[in-house]
Protein backbone atom coordinates (compact mmCIF):
# COMPACT_ATOMS: atom_id res chain seq x y z
CA UNK A 1 0.00 0.00 0.00
CA UNK A 2 2.94 2.31 -0.54
CA UNK A 3 1.07 4.37 -3.10
CA UNK A 4 -1.93 4.99 -0.87
CA UNK A 5 0.24 5.77 2.14
CA UNK A 6 2.34 8.05 0.01
CA UNK A 7 -0.71 9.95 -1.21
CA UNK A 8 -2.19 10.19 2.25
CA UNK A 9 1.03 11.63 3.61
CA UNK A 10 1.14 14.28 0.96
CA UNK A 11 -2.56 15.10 0.93
CA UNK A 12 -1.88 18.20 2.95
CA UNK A 13 0.67 19.75 0.61
CA UNK A 14 0.38 21.10 -2.90
CA UNK A 15 1.51 18.02 -4.75
CA UNK A 16 -0.40 18.15 -8.05
CA UNK A 17 -0.52 14.36 -8.15
CA UNK A 18 -2.89 14.26 -5.18
CA UNK A 19 -5.23 16.88 -6.62
CA UNK A 20 -5.27 15.31 -10.07
CA UNK A 21 -5.81 11.86 -8.63
CA UNK A 22 -8.79 13.19 -6.70
CA UNK A 23 -10.29 14.75 -9.84
CA UNK A 24 -9.89 11.49 -11.80
CA UNK A 25 -11.46 9.53 -8.95
CA UNK A 26 -14.32 12.01 -8.69
CA UNK A 27 -14.99 11.62 -12.41
CA UNK A 28 -15.18 7.85 -12.03
CA UNK A 29 -17.52 8.21 -9.08
CA UNK A 30 -19.66 10.62 -11.07
CA UNK A 31 -19.88 8.22 -14.01
CA UNK A 32 -21.18 5.44 -11.78
CA UNK A 33 -23.65 7.76 -10.06
CA UNK A 34 -24.95 8.92 -13.42
CA UNK A 35 -25.36 5.34 -14.63
CA UNK A 36 -27.31 4.44 -11.48
CA UNK A 37 -29.63 7.44 -11.83
CA UNK A 38 -30.20 7.03 -15.58
CA UNK A 39 -31.01 3.35 -15.09
CA UNK A 40 -33.44 4.21 -12.32
CA UNK A 41 -35.15 6.87 -14.44
CA UNK A 42 -35.47 4.48 -17.41
CA UNK A 43 -36.88 1.77 -15.15
CA UNK A 44 -39.50 4.31 -14.03
CA UNK A 45 -40.45 5.04 -17.60
CA UNK A 46 -38.71 8.36 -18.11
CA UNK A 47 -37.95 9.38 -21.70
CA UNK A 48 -34.42 10.16 -22.85
CA UNK A 49 -35.58 13.75 -23.35
CA UNK A 50 -36.68 14.06 -19.73
CA UNK A 51 -33.45 12.50 -18.43
CA UNK A 52 -31.33 14.76 -20.65
CA UNK A 53 -33.17 17.86 -19.44
CA UNK A 54 -32.48 17.01 -15.79
CA UNK A 55 -28.82 16.23 -16.49
CA UNK A 56 -28.42 19.43 -18.48
CA UNK A 57 -27.13 17.66 -21.58
CA UNK A 58 -28.58 16.99 -25.03
CA UNK A 59 -30.94 14.09 -25.61
CA UNK A 60 -28.47 12.75 -28.19
CA UNK A 61 -25.63 12.77 -25.66
CA UNK A 62 -27.46 10.75 -23.04
CA UNK A 63 -28.96 8.43 -25.63
CA UNK A 64 -25.61 7.76 -27.29
CA UNK A 65 -24.11 6.92 -23.93
CA UNK A 66 -26.86 4.72 -22.48
CA UNK A 67 -29.41 3.77 -25.09
CA UNK A 68 -29.92 2.12 -28.41
CA UNK A 69 -33.27 3.46 -29.67
Amino acid at each position, binding site marked *: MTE*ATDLAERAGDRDPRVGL*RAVAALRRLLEQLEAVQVRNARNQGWSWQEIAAELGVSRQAVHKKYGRH
Partner: protein
Amino acid sequence: MFERFTNDARGVVKSAFEYVEGGDGQSVEPEHLLLALLDREGSRGSFALTALGLGERRESVRQALRQARRRAGLSQADTDALAGLGIDVAEIVSRVEEVHGVGAMSGDRKDKGWWSGRPSFGRGAKGVLEHSLRVALAQRDRHIGDEHILLALTMRPGVPAEVLADHGVTYESLVRVLYGGGESKAG
Protein backbone atom coordinates in the same frame (compact mmCIF):
# COMPACT_ATOMS: atom_id res chain seq x y z
CA MET B 1 0.88 -6.81 -31.65
CA PHE B 2 -1.57 -9.70 -31.19
CA GLU B 3 0.36 -12.07 -33.44
CA ARG B 4 3.10 -12.15 -30.79
CA PHE B 5 0.70 -13.19 -28.04
CA THR B 6 1.01 -16.76 -26.80
CA ASN B 7 -2.07 -18.95 -26.53
CA ASP B 8 -2.14 -18.26 -22.79
CA ALA B 9 -2.10 -14.48 -23.33
CA ARG B 10 -4.85 -14.76 -25.94
CA GLY B 11 -6.80 -16.93 -23.53
CA VAL B 12 -6.60 -14.19 -20.88
CA VAL B 13 -7.99 -11.59 -23.29
CA LYS B 14 -10.74 -13.93 -24.46
CA SER B 15 -11.79 -14.86 -20.96
CA ALA B 16 -11.72 -11.18 -19.88
CA PHE B 17 -14.26 -10.53 -22.65
CA GLU B 18 -16.37 -13.42 -21.38
CA TYR B 19 -16.53 -11.82 -17.92
CA VAL B 20 -17.99 -8.67 -19.47
CA GLU B 21 -20.36 -10.57 -21.76
CA GLY B 22 -21.59 -12.39 -18.67
CA GLY B 23 -22.77 -9.07 -17.23
CA ASP B 24 -19.67 -8.03 -15.30
CA GLY B 25 -19.44 -4.36 -16.28
CA GLN B 26 -19.74 -2.73 -19.70
CA SER B 27 -16.23 -2.80 -21.09
CA VAL B 28 -13.13 -4.91 -20.52
CA GLU B 29 -11.07 -3.30 -17.77
CA PRO B 30 -7.73 -4.23 -16.17
CA GLU B 31 -9.74 -5.90 -13.38
CA HIS B 32 -11.16 -8.38 -15.90
CA LEU B 33 -7.68 -9.19 -17.16
CA LEU B 34 -6.68 -10.02 -13.59
CA LEU B 35 -9.79 -12.17 -13.02
CA ALA B 36 -8.97 -14.02 -16.23
CA LEU B 37 -5.36 -14.52 -15.12
CA LEU B 38 -6.54 -15.99 -11.80
CA ASP B 39 -8.54 -18.62 -13.71
CA ARG B 40 -5.64 -19.93 -15.76
CA GLU B 41 -3.79 -23.14 -15.03
CA GLY B 42 -0.47 -24.40 -16.27
CA SER B 43 0.65 -21.07 -17.71
CA ARG B 44 3.70 -18.96 -16.82
CA GLY B 45 1.46 -16.40 -15.12
CA SER B 46 -0.29 -19.08 -13.13
CA PHE B 47 3.07 -20.55 -12.10
CA ALA B 48 4.26 -17.14 -10.88
CA LEU B 49 1.09 -16.53 -8.85
CA THR B 50 1.35 -19.95 -7.24
CA ALA B 51 5.07 -19.44 -6.54
CA LEU B 52 4.16 -16.25 -4.67
CA GLY B 53 1.71 -18.11 -2.46
CA LEU B 54 -1.49 -17.33 -4.30
CA GLY B 55 -2.32 -20.97 -4.89
CA GLU B 56 -4.93 -21.05 -2.14
CA ARG B 57 -5.57 -17.33 -1.93
CA ARG B 58 -6.96 -16.62 -5.37
CA GLU B 59 -10.44 -16.27 -3.90
CA SER B 60 -9.15 -13.59 -1.54
CA VAL B 61 -7.97 -11.58 -4.56
CA ARG B 62 -11.35 -12.00 -6.25
CA GLN B 63 -13.05 -10.87 -3.05
CA ALA B 64 -10.87 -7.73 -2.87
CA LEU B 65 -11.68 -6.95 -6.52
CA ARG B 66 -15.40 -7.32 -5.81
CA GLN B 67 -15.13 -4.91 -2.87
CA ALA B 68 -13.37 -2.32 -5.03
CA ARG B 69 -16.06 -2.67 -7.71
CA ARG B 70 -18.72 -2.07 -5.12
CA ARG B 71 -17.18 1.34 -4.45
CA ALA B 72 -17.39 2.38 -8.11
CA GLY B 73 -14.14 0.61 -8.99
CA LEU B 74 -12.08 3.11 -7.00
CA SER B 75 -8.75 2.01 -5.60
CA GLN B 76 -7.69 2.72 -2.03
CA ALA B 77 -5.42 5.50 -3.34
CA ASP B 78 -8.41 7.04 -5.19
CA THR B 79 -10.55 6.80 -2.07
CA ASP B 80 -7.81 8.45 0.00
CA ALA B 81 -7.43 11.25 -2.55
CA LEU B 82 -11.17 11.92 -2.40
CA ALA B 83 -11.09 11.83 1.40
CA GLY B 84 -8.57 14.66 1.10
CA LEU B 85 -11.35 16.69 -0.55
CA GLY B 86 -13.78 15.78 2.20
CA ILE B 87 -15.58 13.18 0.08
CA ASP B 88 -16.44 9.98 1.91
CA VAL B 89 -16.76 7.31 -0.77
CA ALA B 90 -17.99 4.64 1.65
CA GLU B 91 -20.78 6.98 2.78
CA ILE B 92 -21.84 7.72 -0.80
CA VAL B 93 -21.85 4.04 -1.74
CA SER B 94 -23.84 3.14 1.34
CA ARG B 95 -26.52 5.79 0.63
CA VAL B 96 -26.85 4.77 -3.01
CA GLU B 97 -27.09 1.10 -2.02
CA GLU B 98 -29.81 1.95 0.52
CA VAL B 99 -32.01 3.20 -2.31
CA HIS B 100 -30.83 1.18 -5.30
CA GLY B 101 -29.60 -2.06 -3.75
CA VAL B 102 -26.26 -3.63 -2.91
CA GLY B 103 -23.78 -3.39 -5.77
CA ALA B 104 -25.58 -0.47 -7.41
CA MET B 105 -22.30 1.41 -7.86
CA SER B 106 -20.46 -1.55 -9.34
CA GLY B 107 -21.52 -1.04 -12.96
CA ASP B 108 -22.90 -4.57 -13.26
CA ARG B 109 -25.71 -5.21 -15.68
CA LYS B 110 -28.15 -7.06 -13.45
CA ASP B 111 -31.25 -5.86 -15.25
CA LYS B 112 -30.39 -6.61 -18.82
CA GLY B 113 -32.15 -4.48 -21.35
CA TRP B 114 -31.58 -0.98 -20.06
CA TRP B 115 -28.04 -1.08 -21.30
CA SER B 116 -27.70 -2.53 -24.74
CA GLY B 117 -24.18 -1.91 -26.04
CA ARG B 118 -21.61 -4.54 -26.97
CA PRO B 119 -18.64 -5.02 -24.67
CA SER B 120 -15.71 -2.94 -25.78
CA PHE B 121 -12.07 -3.02 -24.77
CA GLY B 122 -11.54 -0.19 -22.28
CA ARG B 123 -8.68 2.27 -22.46
CA GLY B 124 -7.15 0.97 -19.24
CA ALA B 125 -7.10 -2.62 -20.50
CA LYS B 126 -5.59 -1.50 -23.81
CA GLY B 127 -2.89 0.27 -21.84
CA VAL B 128 -2.11 -2.93 -19.94
CA LEU B 129 -1.68 -4.92 -23.17
CA GLU B 130 0.58 -2.25 -24.67
CA HIS B 131 2.55 -2.22 -21.46
CA SER B 132 2.88 -6.02 -21.56
CA LEU B 133 4.57 -5.70 -24.95
CA ARG B 134 7.13 -3.29 -23.49
CA VAL B 135 7.68 -5.60 -20.52
CA ALA B 136 8.35 -8.53 -22.86
CA LEU B 137 10.80 -6.44 -24.91
CA ALA B 138 12.61 -5.30 -21.79
CA GLN B 139 13.03 -8.92 -20.70
CA ARG B 140 14.11 -9.87 -24.23
CA ASP B 141 11.25 -12.34 -24.47
CA ARG B 142 10.16 -12.96 -28.03
CA HIS B 143 6.55 -13.61 -27.24
CA ILE B 144 4.00 -11.94 -25.01
CA GLY B 145 2.71 -14.42 -22.48
CA ASP B 146 0.18 -14.10 -19.68
CA GLU B 147 3.08 -13.46 -17.27
CA HIS B 148 3.81 -10.22 -19.16
CA ILE B 149 0.18 -9.14 -18.77
CA LEU B 150 0.50 -9.89 -15.05
CA LEU B 151 3.74 -7.87 -14.82
CA ALA B 152 2.10 -4.97 -16.66
CA LEU B 153 -0.84 -5.04 -14.23
CA THR B 154 1.51 -4.58 -11.26
CA MET B 155 3.18 -1.58 -12.92
CA ARG B 156 0.09 0.54 -13.58
CA PRO B 157 -1.61 2.47 -10.79
CA GLY B 158 -5.05 1.14 -9.97
CA VAL B 159 -7.09 -1.51 -8.25
CA PRO B 160 -5.36 -4.61 -9.71
CA ALA B 161 -1.87 -3.42 -8.69
CA GLU B 162 -3.09 -2.50 -5.19
CA VAL B 163 -4.90 -5.78 -4.65
CA LEU B 164 -1.96 -7.79 -5.98
CA ALA B 165 0.49 -5.87 -3.78
CA ASP B 166 -1.72 -6.59 -0.76
CA HIS B 167 -1.24 -10.28 -1.60
CA GLY B 168 2.52 -10.00 -1.98
CA VAL B 169 2.50 -9.87 -5.78
CA THR B 170 4.55 -6.91 -7.04
CA TYR B 171 6.66 -6.26 -10.12
CA GLU B 172 9.78 -7.09 -8.14
CA SER B 173 8.48 -10.31 -6.62
CA LEU B 174 7.19 -11.47 -10.01
CA VAL B 175 10.50 -10.76 -11.74
CA ARG B 176 12.22 -12.73 -8.98
CA VAL B 177 10.14 -15.88 -9.48
CA LEU B 178 9.95 -15.57 -13.28
CA TYR B 179 13.49 -14.52 -14.11
CA GLY B 180 15.39 -15.20 -10.92
CA GLY B 181 16.83 -11.69 -10.71
CA GLY B 182 15.90 -8.10 -9.93
CA GLU B 183 16.11 -6.37 -13.29
CA SER B 184 15.16 -2.75 -13.68
CA LYS B 185 11.62 -1.72 -14.53
CA ALA B 186 10.52 -1.43 -18.12
CA GLY B 187 9.00 1.91 -19.16
